[in-house]
């Protein structure tokens, strides 16, 4: 695929922490305007992979190209400008615990100087309503449950209407109804705003609902990448095992 079609291109990505190799020559394309879902076992490096896409972690070797630009060639200021096109929701929320929920969601708007104070307040309300937390604006993060914090993190990630959205397990620990709300939101962000979405999730039901592409991380590389229909029929034993386990586990519950 040509670089114009891929907003993120990872080539030969390698990352080790000490002696522990997490990513081992990983290649991945993230097509513009589509939804890519990354699956894989716990501790395989999915979060680490996501952090490379936005320059929070630097690879030991290999290249990270965003919109055709090699991230490692950017200085701090250029990287900052680049990042404003991204929104990221962290696995544990990463909310600023000294600020209210509303201030958290307004943070990217304030820092990027978007809108008047009134417009920002309106946008914050809007985003909180989207994740079904319209009453939580005045609360502090410490007063919220884990699932609520994650949803606030989600609202904060989408507040400034970024082109590229990175969601690290946005629905883990949510009840089925709220989970559906978030899944639908992801699809809507892609379809109405044309956003590119990269989501990490363990929930195979969500995967097939939101994915245009599914990539499976195993042993430091993407062992399979396919559209959902094709993915289901892959014969790779690692994929089969993962699908079998998670789908099976789901049915017995």
């Amino acid at each position, binding site marked *: 695929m040509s670089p114009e079609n891929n907003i993120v291109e990872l080539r030969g990505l390698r990352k080790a922490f000490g002696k522990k190799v997490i990513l081992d020559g990983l290649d991945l394309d993230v097509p513009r305007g589509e939804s890519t879902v990354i699956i894989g076992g716990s501790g395989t490096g999915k979060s680490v992979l996501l*952090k490379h896409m*936005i320059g*929070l972690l630097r690879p030991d070797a290999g290249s990270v190209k965003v919109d055709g630009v090699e991230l490692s060639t950017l200085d*701090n200021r250029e990287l*900052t*400008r680049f*990042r*404003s096109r*991204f*929104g*990221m929701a*962290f*696995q*544990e929320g*990463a*909310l*600023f*615990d000294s600020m209210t929920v509303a201030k958290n969601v307004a*943070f*990217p708007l304030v*820092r*990027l100087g978007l809108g008047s104070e009134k417009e920002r307040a309106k946008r914050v309300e809007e985003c909180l309503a989207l994740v079904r937390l319209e009453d939580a604006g005045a609360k502090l993060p410490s007063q919220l449950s884990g699932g609520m914090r994650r949803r606030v993190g989600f609202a*904060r990630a989408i507040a400034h209407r970024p082109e590229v959205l990175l969601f690290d397990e946005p629905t883990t620990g949510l009840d089925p109804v709220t989970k559906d709300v978030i899944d639908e939101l992801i699809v809507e962000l892609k379809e109405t705003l044309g956003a590119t979405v990269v989501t990490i999730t363990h929930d195979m039901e969500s995967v097939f609902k939101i994915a245009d592409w599914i990539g499976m991380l195993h042993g430091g590389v993407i062992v399979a990448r396919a559209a959902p229909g094709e993915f289901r029929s892959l014969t790779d034993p690692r994929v089969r095992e993962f699908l079998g386990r998670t789908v099976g586990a789901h049915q017995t519950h």
Partner: protein
Amino acid sequence: MSVLPFEGFFREVGRFGRILWRVLAWTPRPPYDFRELGRQMVRVGVDSLPVVMLTAMFTGMVMALQTFNVLARFGAERYVGSLVSLSMVRELAAVLSGLVLAGRAGSAMGAELGTMRVTEQIDALEVMATDPVHYLVVPRVWATTIMMPLLVLLADGMGIWGGYLVAVVLMGANPVSHMDNTFRFMEVSDLTSGLIKAAAFGLLIAAIGCQQGLYTRGGAEGVGRATTRSVVLASIAILISDFFLTKLLF
């Protein structure tokens, strides 16, 4: 913990230099967050004020007690006031307040920024077009650098007052001659050199605390380590830099 291997020591010094450089580079750049600066100044000041005052007062009292007896052996007890005030103003108020602040404000910064690091709040800042040094470290460093001289000025007063209490009330010295001697040999440069030291210590305390916080790794345990190291390293830095500053300023 207090005895770092040399390699670790040089790494810390390198990181400290980098943080300091980034603070200076970011300071002139907008947006200027004066509200946050004010908030941090209040926090640093209010957190440390009672302990700083108590420390200074009792130090003045003990010094008066010690020197009164010694000076009395050669009939020079009327100089107690001079001794107490000069030691406090030139040296002790700054160093003792610095050590107190390292324990209160410096450790708080290490713990707060360390927690933000391990809960990915620092990453979140970076993702949202915000440099953590600009947003978190710059206001803390300047707040501490500004508040330290103010605290030390109060500590000077408390120390002198403590000395007065002991010499005059306890030992029965003449109040007029005691006060006269307290200020007789003091020069403006004594005062300013103490305050310059205070500002330098403030800078060290905050920059070290923030540096330890930002470089925290390893969960709650890591935060604990960062907190301890903030205090230990800042205290060492105060004591070492005190020697060189004294050499430089006099």
